[in-house]
C-alpha cells in the first residue's frame, strides 16, 4: 500500500520534469551548448556528462600535472597534452568513453542523448 502511494507520488513529481525535459531537448538541438569537464586531483569532473549531438565540451586542466583526454575504443579523437591551466574544446558527434593516456586510471564518459521529443512520446 505505502509503496504504491510512494511510487504514485514520485511519478506525479517527475512527470512535469520529463515533459519539460522533452522541450529542452528540442531547443538545445537548435542551439548547441558548451559544457565543461574540469580535470582536478587526477579526475575528470563530471566523470559522466550528458550532451546533445553538436554540443561542445571544453576540457580544462586545473591539476598540478599534465593530462589528456583520449577516446578509448579506437582513439577516434585525442586532445593535445594539456598542461596545468590549458584547455581544449571539442564538438561532440557521438557518445564516447575516454581516458588519459598518461594515467590510465583516469576515465570519463560523454553520453549523447538519444531520446528526442519524438521518441519520448512513444514511451
Amino acid at each position, binding site marked *: 500500500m505505502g509503496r504504491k502511494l510512494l511510487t504514485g507520488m514520485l511519478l506525479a513529481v517527475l512527470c512535469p520534469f520529463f515533459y519539460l525535459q522533452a522541450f529542452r531537448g528540442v531547443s538545445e538541438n537548435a542551439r548547441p551548448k558548451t559544457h565543461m569537464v574540469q580535470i582536478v*586531483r*587526477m*579526475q575528470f569532473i563530471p566523470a559522466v556528462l550528458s550532451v546533445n549531438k553538436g554540443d561542445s565540451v571544453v576540457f580544462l586542466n586545473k*591539476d*598540478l*600535472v*599534465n593530462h589528456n583526454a583520449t577516446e578509448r575504443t579506437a582513439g577516434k579523437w585525442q586532445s593535445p597534452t594539456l598542461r*596545468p591551466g590549458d584547455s581544449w574544446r571539442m564538438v561532440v558527434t557521438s557518445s564516447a568513453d575516454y581516458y588519459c*593516456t*598518461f*594515467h*590510465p*586510471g*583516469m576515465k570519463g564518459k560523454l553520453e549523447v542523448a538519444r531520446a528526442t521529443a519524438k521518441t519520448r512520446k512513444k514511451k
Partner: protein
Amino acid sequence: MKRSKTIIARATGLLLCVLISGFTVLAQHTGQQGNTQKQGTQKQGKSKSTQQKSAHQNMKLTDPEIASVAVVANQIDIDHARLAQEKTQNTEVLNFAQTMITDHQAVIDQATALVKKLNVTPKENQLSRKLQTDSENSMKMLRAKSGSAFDQAYIDHEVTYHKAVISTVENTLIPNAKNAELKALLQNILPSLRAHLEHAQMLKTQYAKE
C-alpha cells in the same frame, strides 16, 4: 517461511565469512610482497630497519627539512624512471616511466617555486638521507637486471616505493608541516601519487597474467 529466512541468514553469513577471509588473505599477501621487496633492497639486518621504521613515525621535521624530503623523494622516482627508459623494451613500461618523469618533475618545480617564494632553504636530514641510501640500493639491484626480469623488478619497486611515499607524506610530512601553503602542496600531490600506484599495480597484474 521461517525456515527460508534462516537459510537466507545462514547463506548471507557464509558469504560474509568468505568475503572477509578473502580480503584478509589478500591483505596479508600484499603485505608480504612489500616485505620481501624491502628485504631485497636493504640487507642491513632486521633489527635496524624496524628501529628506523618506528623512529620515523613520530619524527619531528621542520619545514626546510620537509621541503628537502619532498624534493629528494620525487627525484628518486625520476632517477628510477630514467634507468627504466635506458633498459626496457616494453612500450607500457616506457610510457609509465615517462609519466613518472613528467609528473614528479612537475611536483619538484612546484615545490622549488614555493620554497623560493617562502624564502626557505631545503635542509638535508635523517629521513632524506635514508631515502637516498635506499634508492642507491634499489638502483644497484635494478642495474643488475635486464629484459622482462628488469621490467618486473622495476614495476615491483614502483608499487612498493609509491606505497612508502604515500605513507610518509600522509603520516610524517603533512602532520609536521607548519606553513599552510606547504601543507596544501603536500595534500595536492597525494592524488597523483595514488594514481601512479594504481597504474603500477595495473602493470603488475598484467605481468601476473602473462
